[in-house]
């Protein structure tokens, strides 16, 4: 195993998609098919590498594995340091699996735009590179660099290839994220100046701050992550961005990119500022709860499918937030598992909605109605994605939602009870959406659209099948994932220094 874990997995994993992006970007514009194929093959190779890494990872081993460190800016002690714990590892795998599927699902997304097709796929690969980098960085400076640079490919994906109101959505997305990022920049500088002139995460862990300083630094990071996640009241950019982005990019935006927020809270806010985390926890729980209820209510009222899915996702991030700030290993594990499952479920939901939108040429719920009669298979997949999204038992999100609520209930019953109301609302918005689009009497306008008669193509089947499989598999047997997550969450919770109430409960969850 020594040989395997010495292999520079993380730098190659981060660098490879970037190289792929450059290659694809310079392919001739007149040969879009070639660009698509190269991008697909490249992303599959990256996924294969990620799977190898998953196998090589020792779940019971060190907290951080695959550590690599290279000199970068000695004057500031900023280094190219990569290392992953269990939490980061599952996110890396999620990205590596989602990107090839998104590329496949976006096969024709750029065809109709006046813009270059190779550039679209190059941007997707560049986005993958920055996302992989942000999760594998173990140096605060490096993390910040990836955190900010991530905006650029996403901005162009939304702004250049998006739908209605794409300019507005792209600018709003960029400005919101940049504002958050600059708050974080101030906090990063503060962390560096007061924490011993280093960016190394491990060393910063032992840095000591005065109470006031620690709270300000926490806030700087937290605001950036809360905007990114997004938590209420920083969420207003997401429905616009999710609604305007092409479906594939939206799946990555909501499925992975936003997880950087919750991941950042787990990796940076909690361990680096434990006292401040405990102090702010009630407020964080409050905004998470408001988010669950408020976003669910808004989702119920949405007429635009993509915006609807965006709102459901804000509600789900509320659950993740609760799981993190309950400070129990169980809820924390649930939250991380939720991050993975939400990526799969919402990713699937976005991609399926994208297939509907591509056929109908409109994302409005009222433009559908009884579509199941024309495209039964596609409607079935939408139904399944909806059920997974509302956390039906047997699908993966159920396990995570249950863990979050259970882990929260042991320490804070009120929060758990209120959050449960979110489940009911989730059933309302999902079932209502499915009913209004695919069930009931057939909307006569649909029959005039030729594309609506075409059910799932082979390409689309290949896209949805792995996601459905994974959702079912992790629904019945989440152990491989929880085994990896659990030690990392436990270590994080120890950093916050909040003891778990009862180990017996933890056993029951397995």
């Amino acid at each position, binding site marked *: 195993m020594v040989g395997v874990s010495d292999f520079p997995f993380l730098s190659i994993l981060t660098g490879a998609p970037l190289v792929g992006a450059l290659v694809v970007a310079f392919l001739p514009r007149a040969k879009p098919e070639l660009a698509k194929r190269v991008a697909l093959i490249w992303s599959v190779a990256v996924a294969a590498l990620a799977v190898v890494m998953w196998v090589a990872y020792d779940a019971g081993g060190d907290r951080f594995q695959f550590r690599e460190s290279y000199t*970068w800016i000695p004057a500031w002690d900023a280094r190219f340091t990569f290392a992953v714990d269990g939490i980061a590892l599952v996110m890396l795998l999620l990205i590596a699996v989602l990107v090839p599927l998104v590329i496949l699902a976006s096969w024709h997304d750029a065809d109709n735009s006046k813009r270059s097709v190779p550039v679209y796929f190059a941007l997707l690969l560049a986005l993958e590179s920055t996302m992989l980098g942000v999760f594998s960085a173990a140096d605060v400076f490096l993390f910040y660099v990836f955190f900010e*640079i991530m905006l650029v490919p996403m901005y162009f994906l939304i702004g*250049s290839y998006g739908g209605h109101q794409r300019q507005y959505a792209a600018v709003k997305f960029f*400005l919101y994220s940049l504002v958050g990022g600059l708050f974080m*920049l*101030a906090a990063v500088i503060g962390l*560096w100046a007061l924490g011993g002139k280093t960016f190394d995460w491990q060393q910063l862990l032992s840095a000591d701050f005065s109470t006031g300083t620690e709270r300000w630094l926490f806030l700087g990071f937290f605001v950036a992550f809360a905007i990114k996640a997004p938590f209420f009241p920083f969420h207003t950019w997401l429905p616009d961005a999710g609604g305007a982005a092409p479906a594939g990019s939206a799946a990555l935006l909501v499925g992975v990119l936003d997880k950087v927020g919750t991941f950042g809270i787990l990796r940076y806010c909690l361990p680096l500022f434990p006292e401040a985390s405990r102090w702010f926890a009630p407020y964080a729980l409050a905004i998470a709860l408001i988010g669950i209820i408020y976003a669910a209510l808004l989702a119920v009222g949405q007429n635009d499918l993509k915006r609807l899915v965006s709102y459901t996702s804000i509600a789900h991030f509320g659950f993740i937030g609760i799981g993190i700030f309950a400070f129990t290993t169980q809820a924390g594990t649930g939250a991380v598992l939720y991050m993975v499952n939400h990526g799969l479920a919402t990713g699937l939901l976005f991609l399926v909605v994208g297939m509907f939108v591509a056929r109908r040429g409109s994302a409005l719920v009222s433009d559908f109605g009884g579509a199941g009669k024309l495209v039964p298979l596609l409607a079935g997949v939408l139904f399944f994605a909806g059920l997974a999204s509302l956390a039906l038992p047997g699908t993966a999100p159920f396990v995570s939602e249950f863990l979050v609520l259970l882990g929260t209930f042991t320490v804070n019953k009120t929060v758990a009870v209120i959050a449960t109301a979110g489940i009911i609302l989730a059933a309302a918005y999902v079932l209502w959406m499915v009913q209004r689009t695919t069930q009931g009497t057939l909307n006569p306008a649909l029959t005039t659209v030729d594309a609506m008669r075409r059910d799932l193509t082979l390409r689309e089947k290949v896209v949805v099948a792995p996601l459905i499989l994974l959702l079912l598999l992790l629904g019945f047997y989440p152990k491989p994932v929880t085994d990896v997550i659990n030690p990392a969450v436990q270590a994080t919770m120890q950093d916050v220094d909040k003891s778990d109430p009862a180990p017996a409960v933890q056993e029951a969850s397995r």
Partner: protein
Amino acid sequence: MQDLQLPPIDYGAIAPMLILFGVACVGVLFEAVLPRSARRTTQLVLALLGLVAAFVVVVLERDTRILTAGGAVAIDGPTLFLQGSIILLGLMALLLVGDRSLEQGGAFVAQAAVTVGSDADRRQAARSQGATEIYPLAVFAIAGMLLFVAANDLLTMFVALEVFSLPLYLLCALARRRRLLSQEAALKYFLLGAYASAFFLFGVALVYGYAGSVQFGSIHDAVRESTQSTILLYAGIALLAIGLLFKAAAAPFHVWTPDVYQGAPTPITGLMAACTKVAAFGALLRVLYVAFDGAAWDYTPVLGAIAVLTMLVGAVLAVTQTDIKRLLAYSSIANAGYLLVGVLALSKDGLSSTMFYLVAYGFTVIAAFAIVTLVRDADGEATHLSRWAGLGRRSPLFAGLFTFILLAFAGIPLTSGFIAKFAVFGAALDSGEAWLVIFGVITSMLLAFPYLRVVVMMWLSEPGETTPAVSIPGGLTAAALMIGVVATLVLGVAPAPLLDLTANAAEFVR
């Protein structure tokens, strides 16, 4: 009568200035003796050779740390670093000045004295040859700047100020197109600059009254020991600061900047934005760090307020601009604010980070103005922002380069702008100036908006009827542009060598 003793002079140390003053004088002679047809090439080659020679001497003298010419000139780390920077940036600006492929006869008018709109004016507009006096004038300006950053007493500094200002006033008036605007800019710059010089000179008198000397070392001693009224000292510092901050384009002494940047020929605007800024801040650093460091407690709050005001004015007014040159002017004002933040760290880190910022900003801003010279139609440069709509579709390469430059201005990672901002903010926070950093971060958020608006214009808007094509640059402009862009990228990705260089150079001799 006593015999005057000539002070010993280290000719090697001041050779860069001697070379450039010599080259400029030779250039003036060439104007008198060479035939018109041979002047342009000869002048350009002579000026470039002079700059290269001066740069080589600066590199050879890199370890010199002396006071020479009777203590009037200090050749030390900061001097040599800033002189090298000014020469390099001046070289880039001169490449822009020398380009004639974009416009018949270059960007400069042949005879500035001809009345605008008269028959003679029309005749000279048709004639291809532009003035060639610009080369010696530019070299005089650059040489004056070298002396400005090396001056170790207030009188030498004043002489240098005039030596580099007067050619700049003239150069501003020499635009081939929009001559009235150009002449207005020059007049405005000259009048306000004359006021600023007067303030500076008055400050020199007051400080002499206080300290009994104009040499920085003696002033430094006097600040600690003098029994004179401190009112003289404070008034003196204030008046000196007005003179220097005027050149640095800090609010409230910034009002000339947008008009002059807009009216001056674009290559000269680049020269002012990059080199004048280096020179002004170099002199400010020396005055504050060497002469008045003992009074730091007294001037820091005032200069801090000016820094905040400068950042706010630059950022807020940049939002409302519709002309790209004015936008860059306000951006340059805001950047003066960030530089002041670095200066006010009043530490070794403050000095080195400010020097890094000056170089990073200089390269980027000259590249930005190089692109401005390229976007043109039959009437010359198309500087109105609405004309830039859809430029990304017409000329993706140049729009891409300009986007990169704007991202650097906005401080996105992997550009020099990010590293530079990080350096000055880090130094300021380290010195306990957290409030300056907070304002810096807030204004960075504001400032991101105008930059982003230009990116949106170029990429996300449809090209209109009036969108000009980007001219293919001649070799000189292309070289300047590529140097600027590559420097922006390299200093963003691998800043360690330059950071080390500035850290090693960051020590004044007194």
